[in-house]
């Protein structure tokens, strides 16, 4: 999600985004900018003092009293500048910057909790991590320095030109001409650097995919001898990257050169004009000398200009990325028509298609699952089983039809109210870097230790937890990989048992486990599903023969719905799946003679 915009942001836009990012600290940002602007005016005036100061020195005889007076004024202006700058930097060094990053992370964090899960799935985990982790700093950190430098670059010359106007109008006009000429070059440069960044980013993307492919496919590539310099695909994309980089470098060179040339040579021309006027006797030598001293100060920030643009771009991109996350609207919660009366689940004419896909994942699906019944979802991969469970979790809203829990449309439930009714056991378990006790307690934060232990016992994990170095106080991070998949799964089931939600969704929780873990997890699940409304996705059909009802999906449609016995008798899709599975079960890895 790191596409830069195609337009060049104006300073005004960036200013607006900065204030947006600053949130409740926006007044502090405005104050900082105002202080910097005032400081820059003071600095411009301090520079301007060189005119009278040098005139006093050059007078015949030198007017030292005047010189000291003007030096005094200069000191006063400088002190004012330093004080204003000191106060302005208070935004950073006073700690407001810490509040801004803090608030932004909180805002983005809250947004992640309430954005539709389908929208959440648009970002890769790493990208979101980068937005919350890095982008915020990239956006906020340069605010102080960058605005300080930019304001100085804009304001100081203006003040100097204004003062020069009073001393020598020709000189002031000559300087003022440079500014309008710089604007189109500046825009050209920004556009070129934007294009350059996009091309290079694209080439980097390609190298990255090829590097991933190379490391993942190394075992295969080794057998083919296509490694290192002989890895054709990788070498191609590395060469391509270098080519694009070089091209981008050259493309960006001209505007940068022109910009630097314009400013430095422009200033030289101004000085040459000044020199000519001095020889003609129409400009005082003192005024010319003052010009020399002051103009030298202008080229310093300009030398930093290209570096500055980069930081500026980075800040822009970071702000845009945060904007993208913050712009996602949460799923609307309608006024509740009626609170859920029970825990039965009903789909009524539900059609749903994933974002960016035309083919619906579910087509006009209707069913009713009574409270405290066990339902299995069965069908080939991609047939819509997982989508059904996702819609119950309100991953996204259906295009047509309604999903109801206890008679209430789930769109009328707040996300907390919905979450409180559901327990989900996924294939992949997420454990926090915290103690085992806290990881289980997460299911119900107000549960006491005894309740947590009871849940662990019910989930068949009390024994292995006690064998850990610090028992329940063992930190997951400390033992990391040494928890097996089955053990992690049982901890997640303990969480679900502690949560005690009336509806339980199981998404193939034992598919990836070895036999012993599988059996232990099965026992834990037995404890979890008692007296609940249960939905289970299972590949092994033998597991779900005891279900009250089996829903058979094919290509997004609900094709059959009955119990195991009736479905077998019907001889339809389910019966075919059942036969296929029996056949593969009969397979044994026996030696096969070569000539069969």
């Amino acid at each position, binding site marked *: 999600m790191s596409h830069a915009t195609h337009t060049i942001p104006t300073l005004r836009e960036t200013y607006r985004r900065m204030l947006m990012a600053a949130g409740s600290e926006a007044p502090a940002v405005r104050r900082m900018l105002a202080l910097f602007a005032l400081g820059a005016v003071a600095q411009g005036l301090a520079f301007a003092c060189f005119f009278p100061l040098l005139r006093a020195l050059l007078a015949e005889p030198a007017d030292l009293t005047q010189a000291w007076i003007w030096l005094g004024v200069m000191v006063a202006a400088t002190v004012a500048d330093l004080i204003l700058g000191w106060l302005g930097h208070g935004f950073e060094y006073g*700690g407001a910057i810490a509040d801004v990053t803090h608030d932004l992370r909180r805002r983005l964090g809250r947004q992640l909790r309430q954005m539709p899960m389908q929208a959440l799935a648009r970002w890769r985990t790493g990208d979101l991590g980068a937005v919350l982790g890095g982008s915020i*700093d990239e956006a906020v950190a*340069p605010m102080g320095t960058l605005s300080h430098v930019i304001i100085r670059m804009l304001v100081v010359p203006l003040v100097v030109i204004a003062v020069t106007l009073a001393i020598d109008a020709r000189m002031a006009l000559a300087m003022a001409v440079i500014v309008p000429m710089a604007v189109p070059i500046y825009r050209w440069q920004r556009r070129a650097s934007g294009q350059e960044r996009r091309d290079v980013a694209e080439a980097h993307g390609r*190298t990255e995919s090829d590097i991933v492919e190379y490391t993942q496919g190394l075992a295969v590539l080794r057998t083919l001898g296509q490694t290192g310099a002989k890895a054709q695909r990788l070498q191609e994309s590395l*060469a391509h990257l270098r080519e694009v980089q070089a091209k981008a470098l050259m493309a960006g*060179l001209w505007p940068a050169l022109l910009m630097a040339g314009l400013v430095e040579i422009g200033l030289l021309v101004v000085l040459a004009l000044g020199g000519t006027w001095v*020889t003609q006797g129409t400009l005082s030598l003192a005024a010319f000398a003052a010009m020399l001293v002051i103009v030298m100060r202008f080229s310093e920030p300009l030398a930093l200009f290209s570096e500055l643009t980069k930081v500026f771009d980075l800040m822009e991109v970071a702000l845009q990325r945060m904007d993208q996350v913050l712009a996602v609207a949460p799923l609307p919660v309608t006024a509740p028509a009626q609170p859920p009366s029970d825990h039965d689940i009903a789909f009524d004419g539900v059609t749903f298609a994933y974002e960016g896909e035309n083919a619906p994942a579910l087509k006009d699906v209707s069913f009713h699952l009574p409270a405290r019944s066990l339902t299995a979802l069965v069908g080939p991969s991609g047939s819509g089983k997982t989508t059904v469970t996702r819609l119950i979790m309100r991953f996204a809203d259906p295009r047509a039809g309604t999903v109801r829990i206890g008679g209430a449309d789930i769109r009328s439930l707040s996300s907390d109210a919905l979450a409180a009714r559901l327990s989900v056991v996924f294939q992949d378990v997420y454990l926090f870097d915290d103690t085992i006790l806290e990881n289980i307690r997460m299911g119900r934060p107000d549960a006491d230790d005894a309740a947590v232990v009871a849940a662990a016992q019910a989930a068949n994990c009390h024994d292995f937890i006690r064998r850990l170095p610090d028992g329940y106080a063992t930190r997951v991070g400390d033992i990391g990989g040494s928890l097996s998949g089955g053990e992690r799964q049982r901890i997640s089931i303990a969480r679900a048992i502690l949560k005690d939600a009336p509806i339980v969704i199981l998404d193939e929780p034992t*598919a990836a486990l070895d036999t012993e873990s599988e059996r232990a997890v099965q026992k834990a699940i037995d404890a979890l599903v008692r007296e609940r409304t249960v939905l289970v996705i299972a590949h092994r059909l033998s597991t779900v023969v005891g279900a009250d009802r089996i829903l058979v999906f094919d290509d997004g449609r609900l094709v059959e719905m009955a119990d195991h016995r009736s479905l077998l008798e019907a001889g339809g899709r389910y019966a075919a799946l059942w036969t296929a*599975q029996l056949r593969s079960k009969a397979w044994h890895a026996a030696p096969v*003679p070569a000539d069969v």
Partner: protein
Amino acid sequence: MDMGSSASVAERKTAAAAAAASAPAAPKALRRGLWGIIDPVRGAIWLAMAMAGLGMVCAIVGVAALAGVLECLRSGALTLPLLGPLDVWGFGLLAGGLIVASLVLRVLSFVVSHLGAFRLEQRLRTDLAAHLAQVPLGYVITAGTGALTKTLQDDVKSLHAFVADSTPLFGRNVAAPVVTLVLLFLIDWWLALVALGVFIAGMAAMRLAMRDYAVLRQRYDRAREAIQAAVIEFVQAMAVVRMFDGGSASFRRYNTALLTFRGIFKTWVQATGTAARITLAVLSPMPTLLAVSAAGIVLHGQGLIGFPALVAVLMLSTGIADALMPLMWMNEFLHRARAGAMRVQDVMDVPVLPTPTQPAAPGDASVEFEAVRFRYPDRTDVALDDLSFIVPPGTVTALVGPSGAGKSTVARLIPRFWDVAGGAVRIGGVDVRACSPEVLMHHVSFVFQDTFLFHDSIASNIRMARPDATDAEVEAAARAAQAHDFITALPQGYDTIAGDRGTRLSGGQRQRITIARAILRDAPILVLDEATAFADPENEALIVAALANLMRGKTVIVIAHRLSTIRDADQIVVLDQGRMAERGTHDALVASDGVYARLWRTHEAAQGWILRSDASETAPGDTP
């Protein structure tokens, strides 16, 4: 582009100050890691730095020439040591020429350093890729493709940023103060001393204020790592935990981390704030200009200095402090580049797998483990201990045992993902360490749980196993692997692009393509690692049929979690905690009532599990 600015400004500014304060010490510490890594483009770097430095000299001398203009305006002409007498226009042209030259040199240095950086990127990535192909594959697996990709991509990129942007700055910043000081002393050493005095006073004050920098910086870095970890945890857990409690528990954890960070961040900026603000004030041009002006008025009043000299000093004197400003950008580059260089070096330091000078060829398709001992690097416990067994050619051996028993380790030692610590692994009577890597890879095929397809056509993905195979042979392999039908049903058939960025294929379909690859390879020894675990019922039946074709006539070593699939193996090796617990056929092992018998009973119970909402009864055959 890749300007480093994830660190705070406060940090950068104070870091710049510290870098300035401890400038002589920093490069020495770097030399081994960073400078060693960028050595291949040493020439470009020196050239870029020299041109940048020279450009700076031109710029500064150009400014001095402008002062010459002023002198000539007063007194007509001035005679220079080498150039002879120059008038106003002479000095004007000299100044203009020097300033244009500095501009050109700056741009050239920029181009040279960037081209060098591009070359370095390509070179380092190629070297790293080549090195990864020679280290134990086990290293690649344990280090993880994610971490290795990060090193090959991001760490190399941070080195790019350093070479491209920092080296010219470095040249400029060395040249600027030196040339400025020399010129100042040439013009008027009283004023030069005043300018230097202001600078030194500022540096001294800063140094005094920066005493706690290292400690604070360390604390801040740690806090940043913590916040990074908290962010990743929060984001990763989001999809999974949100259904639990609307994500409020994880948000609480996230928020706690945020609060801690805010505290430390605030302390850091406030503690270094004074130092940083003093630094900013001193490095700003006004204090130097004021001091020089004051001294200038005194000296001028006593007739000790000419007016043009005073103006020249006013123009030049701030150059010393100015040169320090870009250091605040540079330090961040250095920081990242050093970390990147370290990680690149870590990968390059992994020893390569020794290859035999006179490779031997395996005699037949047997596999033998003789008293094999093995321990994973960075682990204290032994993964395999004194393990011996023989797999005769054309037979099937199953590896069984609880998770962590060492089954996968056995499979990985055969293709030399790792080398044994003791004993030997032999194929066809030859120690695998005595085979050339190519021969070994041709004798052994693998089908793993995680299938890997390249971003290329399906035909190429299969043909990869044997580049000279004809289309007919590829298709025959696909048929045998039960993949032909689904492949031809795809819009582009065998030309469909597969891989992560290609057409979405189901796990079972990907699995069958890798089986087709193995069939085409036709290696005499086959290692299967739980090849059917993730398949759905229909795919499972097809994969089973594909595997039966693949196994025909081969020596097979199979790791299976589901015991029913290996009942008929010629030999079952039961592992427990890295040792062989039992060995024999299914029937014999069940009869002996040992580890395997227990596993088998558990397996039967798991197979018989029936999910019920009133699950009061236990599954049949369950052992309590």
